[in-house]
């Protein structure tokens, strides 16, 4: 015991102030082991240190598999994965959809990887750490990594990559994530294998912005021409080398012989093909007929037959993907928060979770804090359906005689069904909701105020994909100057809390602010967050180690056949 204590003290002596604070939180029981590991990875603590500290504090670090199938697999073989068709050219700057990012992540790699449990692990970065106020993050790069054109990966490549994505005059899709966080001049090479990110403002979750979560940011050679065509060579450091690409149809790969993990036996398969599908039903049928080995993503509503098929493995990952039902706080009948609260109280969340997702979702509590985020304060009471209370609130707001409002949204996924459910719920209290369900292009319009039903409608439903941290959800859709603020919510107290949350580095501080935000949003209810749904992936039963993420990546590094 003395030996263990001595070793523990030695480890603590090498830790930063932030890391020691995290260890204190674990030791005091204010953090679960899972939250400790997740937060520790963000701060750049290695798996060995996390494991040792958790053991020393009496916590086991056994794997917490959330449904992914793992097991020993045979070396070699070829696999075909059905993915959503990329919506356009495969260009690291402009990819903005799940199909495109699934392709990017095969030949390309990120500094860090955000896994299915939202833990960060190093890929091209070996380690990383923040300064005291998290305004500078320093990343040590892995050595002996080569691009698939044979050149070595160095700090200059990383600098060029992130300068391209943070250029305010550029066309990168990642610009919205870097806006106000990172500017091109802030990315600096310290030496050949060290890069420092000097941020525009402190950010405790910055490592997620250089992870697979910010899917455009695969590291490319400094010589890469960002105005050129990525599809010609599929540059990158990843485990797969492109052998053929047919626009709109498929991309085929062979294992990259010079991959930095090749000596460890990765990737396991020899060949990989990603087949593109424009709609969901055909790829589900293709999996059932065994034409596909893996389907990267499917919805519970369309893929119900997969959920009950014994010859298919389903991997369900909890996620922060959700729908937002906005109510314009500056327009009748929603100017009174009592009306907004009443609408939220009419929603039968467990009914929606079961009816729309076969239980593969979690009820939301009208804030972006999904249960999957470690910073979410779960002690805040869950809002549940209460029709009587809703009636009382409407009476207090002078709306007991009913009201009429138009709900705008788009025709995709389960969204029209959610719209119908809200319409039916509001009818219970004499309210009338007229639905305006249009194609997505019409609903989003030009995506700026005054030219978009999404941002201009009195009430609407918008789809938001998964993020590893809630920062984006907290900012643009809810802050006073937020560019996606469809509820037109203006609250100085909220804006201040978000700034505090973003700057907070340790988990207990984040959780303390999160509680205040959750409470404030429950009271104000500018947006209803009815549920957060799981990311579903399906494979044939003789396949293991496929590694999807709720973001839409499908990592095939260790995937193989069991028989």
């Amino acid at each position, binding site marked *: 015991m003395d030996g263990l204590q001595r070793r523990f003290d030695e480890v603590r002596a090498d830790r930063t102030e932030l890391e020691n604070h995290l260890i204190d939180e674990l030791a005091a029981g204010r953090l679960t082991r899972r939250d400790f590991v997740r937060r520790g990875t963000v701060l750049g603590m290695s798996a060995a240190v996390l494991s040792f500290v958790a053991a020393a504090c009496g916590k086991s670090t056994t794997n917490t598999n959330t449904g992914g199938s793992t097991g020993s697999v045979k070396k070699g073989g070829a696999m075909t994965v059905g993915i959503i068709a990329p*919506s*356009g*050219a495969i*260009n690291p700057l*402009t990819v*903005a*959809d799940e199909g495109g990012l699934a392709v990017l992540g095969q030949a390309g790699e990120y500094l860090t990887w955000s896994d299915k449990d939202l833990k960060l692990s190093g890929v091209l970065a070996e380690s990383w750490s923040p300064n005291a106020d998290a305004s500078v993050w320093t990343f040590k790069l892995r050595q002996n990594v080569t691009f698939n054109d044979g050149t070595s990966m160095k700090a200059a490549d990383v600098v060029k990559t992130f300068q391209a994505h943070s250029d*305010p*005059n*550029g*066309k*990168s*899709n990642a*610009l*919205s994530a870097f*806006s106000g966080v990172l500017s091109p001049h802030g990315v600096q090479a310290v030496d050949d294998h060290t890069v420092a990110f000097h941020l525009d403002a402190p950010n405790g979750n910055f490592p997620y912005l250089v992870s697979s979560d910010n899917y455009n940011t695969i590291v490319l050679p400094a010589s890469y021409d960002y105005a050129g*065509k990525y599809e010609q060579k599929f540059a990158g450091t990843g485990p797969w080398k492109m052998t*053929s690409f*047919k*626009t*709109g*149809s498929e991309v085929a790969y062979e294992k990259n012989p010079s991959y930095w993990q090749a000596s460890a036996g990765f990737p396991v398969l020899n060949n990989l093909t990603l*087949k593109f*599908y*424009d*709609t969901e*039903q*055909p*790829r589900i*049928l*293709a999996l*059932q*007929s*065994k*034409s596909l080995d893996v389907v990267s993503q499917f919805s519970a509503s369309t893929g119900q037959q997969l959920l009950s098929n014994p010859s298919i493995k389903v991997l369900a990952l909890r996620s922060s993907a959700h729908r937002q039902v906005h109510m314009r706080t500056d327009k009748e009948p929603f100017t009174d928060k009592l009306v907004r609260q009443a609408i939220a109280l009419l929603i039968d969340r467990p009914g929606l979770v079961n009816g729309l997702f076969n239980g593969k979702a979690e009820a939301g509590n009208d804030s972006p804090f999904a249960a999957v985020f470690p910073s979410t304060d779960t002690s805040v009471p869950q809002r549940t359906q209460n029709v009587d209370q809703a009636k009382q609130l409407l009476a207090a707001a002078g709306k007991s005689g009913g009201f009429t409002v138009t709900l705008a949204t788009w025709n995709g996924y389960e969204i029209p069904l959610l719209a119908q459910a809200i319409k039916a719920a509001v009818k219970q209290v004499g309210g009338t909701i007229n639905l305006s369900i249009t*194609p997505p*292009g*019409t609903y*989003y*319009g*030009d*995506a*700026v105020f005054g*030219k*978009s039903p*999404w941002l201009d409608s009195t009430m609407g439903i918008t789809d938001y994909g998964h993020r590893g941290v809630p920062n984006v959800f907290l900012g*643009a859709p809810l802050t006073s100057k937020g*560019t*996606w603020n469809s509820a037109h919510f203006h609250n100085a107290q909220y804006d201040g809390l978000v700034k505090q949350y973003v700057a907070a580095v340790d988990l207990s501080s984040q959780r303390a602010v999160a509680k205040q935000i959750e409470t404030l949003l429950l009271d104000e209810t500018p947006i209803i967050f009815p549920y957060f749904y799981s990311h579903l992936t399906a494979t044939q039963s003789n396949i293991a180690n496929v590694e999807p993420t709720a973001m839409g990546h499908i990592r095939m590094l260790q995937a193989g056949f069991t028989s």
Partner: protein
Amino acid sequence: MARFLLRRFGLALLTLWLLATIVFLGAHVLPGDVGRRILGPFAAPGAVKALNHELGTDQPIPLQYWHWLSSAARGRLGESLSFRVPVSSLLGPALLNSLKLALVAFVLVVPLGVLGGVVAGLADGRPLDRLVTVGGLSATVVPEFVWSIVVILVFAVKLRLLPVTAQAPLGSGPLTQFHYLILPAFPLVFVLFGYIARITRAGMIEALEADYTRTAVLKGISRRAVIARHVLRNGLLPTIAVVATQTGYLIGGLVVIELIFNYQGIGQLVYLSAQKKDFPLLQGTVLVIGIVYLTVTLLADITYSLLNPRIRYGSAE
């Protein structure tokens, strides 16, 4: 005939120009800009602006129209805005795919439909006639996506006799490609059989009741010879027009079938380009479909005139 063909060619060019112009204007009326469609609703406005500038979609609409028209007149259809490859490199393989699927469907449904119509016409009012007309009509009214799902579930998922997709692996030979195209051709046969059979049947009945048929019978010509020489030749004329129209549909209108069978044909390309506001690609695909329609209509007119001595377009001039 030469003057007739020349005039039809001139009209075809005018039709294609009108078609492309209407599509161009129609597509620009739709809300949302191209950069926003590519980068998605959550991209930064600055990034959208930069991309639109790079693509040239921030230029005035008349200027964009002129650029496209002057390039198209020189045989250049431009570059796809979303896929960033020449439109012709997408159109060529897609047209070939659509032609292959149309050919397989055509080979299956035209003989079956004509045979069904002839048999029903000859058995007018009898149970066999009812079977063909009612059965064919029932098959026609079931939407093609329903037929598609049904045949996939039966022949690909349950029986595993045929592949679930229409797209054969790269480098496949003709027999393998045919194997992959059988299943998507089934729904087309179901949907078109009733239509072709009904038109053929109506033409047959009309021809059977015509004076020239009665005269041929009274002259003592055998029933088989009367049907072959007089009834079929006249009774099939309306069928030719219908088949010509359906050929255009088979090549350019199979959006749903191509999506369900994950087949990269012209129909799927039209759908995707319209969805993405990819104007050069949309106009290119619409032009190709227009050319296909005009060509098959012209061929039908020529065939019609050859089969029917009373119609001689050239001599009418």
